[in-house]
């Protein structure tokens, strides 16, 4: 009965397991994914290779976004030079062609890189939903260590398979240093 009421406790964001090593986190991520949990996130002070893939995350939107931005930059660069020099204000310099494309390569290249770089930075931040100064995970016990020397795995309460006691017990089987509950801010 108490378990049933707890599943409906909307104040619980999820359960957080703390690990002492990157390898421990990677093993736990694999086990959690194999167990069938879907709304899981791992937190680490530096990128641990394989963890996002172990959680079933294989996104490649950022590279595509950069490619599209780069192409847009190239079009903008060559378009700017063509339109200003050939259409809007053609100027005859020693009889040379107005659309002198070999001379337009440097500016086109610079525009490509500039746009692509903005695509990379803004795209990465936007897809990550940053900046976002506050997040329920920051309420986690000792979560300030996630940017220092500890590794965390959180199974979120929105997971269809989430069930307070069983989920907690499952996390405890993963050789975690500690398992704790993460709550939403009280005023939520």
């Amino acid at each position: 009965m108490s378990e049933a009421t707890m599943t409906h406790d909307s104040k619980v964001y999820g359960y957080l397991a703390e690990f002492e090593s990157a390898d421990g986190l990677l093993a736990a991520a694999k086990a959690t994914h194999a167990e069938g949990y879907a709304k899981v996130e791992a937190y680490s002070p530096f990128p641990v290779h394989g963890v996002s893939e172990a959680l079933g995350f294989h996104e490649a939107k950022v590279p595509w976004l950069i490619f599209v931005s780069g192409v847009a930059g190239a079009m903008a660069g060559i378009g700017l030079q063509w339109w200003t020099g050939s259409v809007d204000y053609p100027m005859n310099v020693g009889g040379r062609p107005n659309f002198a494309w070999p001379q337009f390569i440097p500016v086109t290249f610079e525009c490509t890189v500039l746009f692509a770089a903005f695509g990379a930075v803004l795209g990465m931040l936007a897809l990550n939903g940053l900046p976002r100064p506050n997040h329920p995970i920051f309420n986690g016990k000792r979560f300030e260590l996630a940017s220092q020397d500890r590794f965390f795995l959180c199974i979120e309460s929105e997971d269809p398979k989430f069930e307070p006691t069983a989920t907690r017990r499952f996390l405890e089987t993963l050789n975690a240093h500690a398992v704790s509950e993460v709550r939403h801010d009280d005023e939520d």
Partner: protein
Amino acid sequence: MAPKNPLEETFIEGEQSYASLDRAIGDIVLDQKRQPGLKWWVPFAIGFTLLQVMMLALTVLVFTGTGIWGINNPVGWGFAIINFVWWIGIGHAGTLISAILLLFRQQWRNSINRFAEAMTIFAVMCAGIFPLMHTGRPWVAYWLMPIGPDTLRMWPQFRSPLVWDVFAVSTYFTVSALFWFIGMIPDFATLRDRATKVFPKVAFGIVSMGWRGASRHWHRYEQAYLILAGLSTPLVLSVHSIVSLDFAVSLIPGWHATIFPPYFVAGAVYAGFAMVLTFAIPVRKWYALEHVITMKHIEWMAKIMLATGLFVFYGYLTEVFFAFYSGVEWERFMMMNRMTGPYWWAYWTLIFCNGLVPQILWSKKIRQNTAILFVVCMFVSIGMWLERFVIVVTSLHRDFLPSSWGMYFGTVWDWGLYLGTIGFFTFLMFLFMRFLPMINIFEVKELFSRMIGAKPASSPAVAKAEVGAHE
């Protein structure tokens, strides 16, 4: 685990843990008592004083005009262009270290990349001042941009390398700043979480953008960072190539040469590594970072300096060869004038500083001796400045018509502005060291995690890391 790389073990020395690395690097910013006192204040004060000289030189320049400089016919490109090329070149080592070495998976870069990227940004800021002021009317500098006929009734001339330069340098500055900032976000989060006082907690909380180290975030972050490195690599090559095209596209003897782009890029890296070492050698000592910026880093940077120095020296020899092999009278005269004309001292000092002095770096003993290395770096910085002086001045001061020959020397305002930008650079570097993490904390920790993963479990470093510093 990845195959064990025997080199990885010496990149971070001593018994370390994640927490000890956080303390060594991050707490320099958070705990102001960790700052080295007078060793910070003295260079900072020198930089700040010279910054005032720069402000004075700029103020007088804006109110009087470029007539206060030594430029006149036939040398219209004096110190402004020399210093511009010198500073841009110095900046290039930062991008080389952070982007090109990343693509080549040279993990030793992790200890020096942040520092070198900061140098890039500050050097480009110094560089930008010169062409801006050289325009004579910096308040209409926006004419360089394609603003449109509504305000100007004309467009920039895109067939001119000088316009390419505007695009190249402004793109380079923007992309370098983005790369630098993105690289710092996870470190800002570390500082936010370690801070105990309210102000650093809030300030780093804002700039960290709420970074929480989620694996999906790291996934996208690494994709973006790697591709940014891939973009920066051709960018840095393009920037100095375009700078060299300012010269090479003209028809002036000594400038009109196809070797210019690669020769300029090599010179840029050469000067840049000299400047990185100039700062890294004292700073690693003052801030007790010898275990992160190890002698191996110092030695390898010295080796890169030696290698790029040889490229540059080869460039000098090629210039001489082609001046004679071309059979062009003007080219031959230019080269003889460089070597034996009124500026012979500049040419031969340049050969001595850039060509001969660095040859002592063939000796491992000297590469390991930071005092001598520091002196060699000074020679290289002076030599690279003289290289640009020789290129700009000797080609212009005696051109095709002997009736228009002349001499060029910098005035007190030229020197004031030049020394002033050195002060500006020093000022910014020391502010950076005090208030921002000067070594990439998360990359050093990642490197450390691979080191402990590659070692047998009984080693003390592993034991210490696993026990942890908490509780």
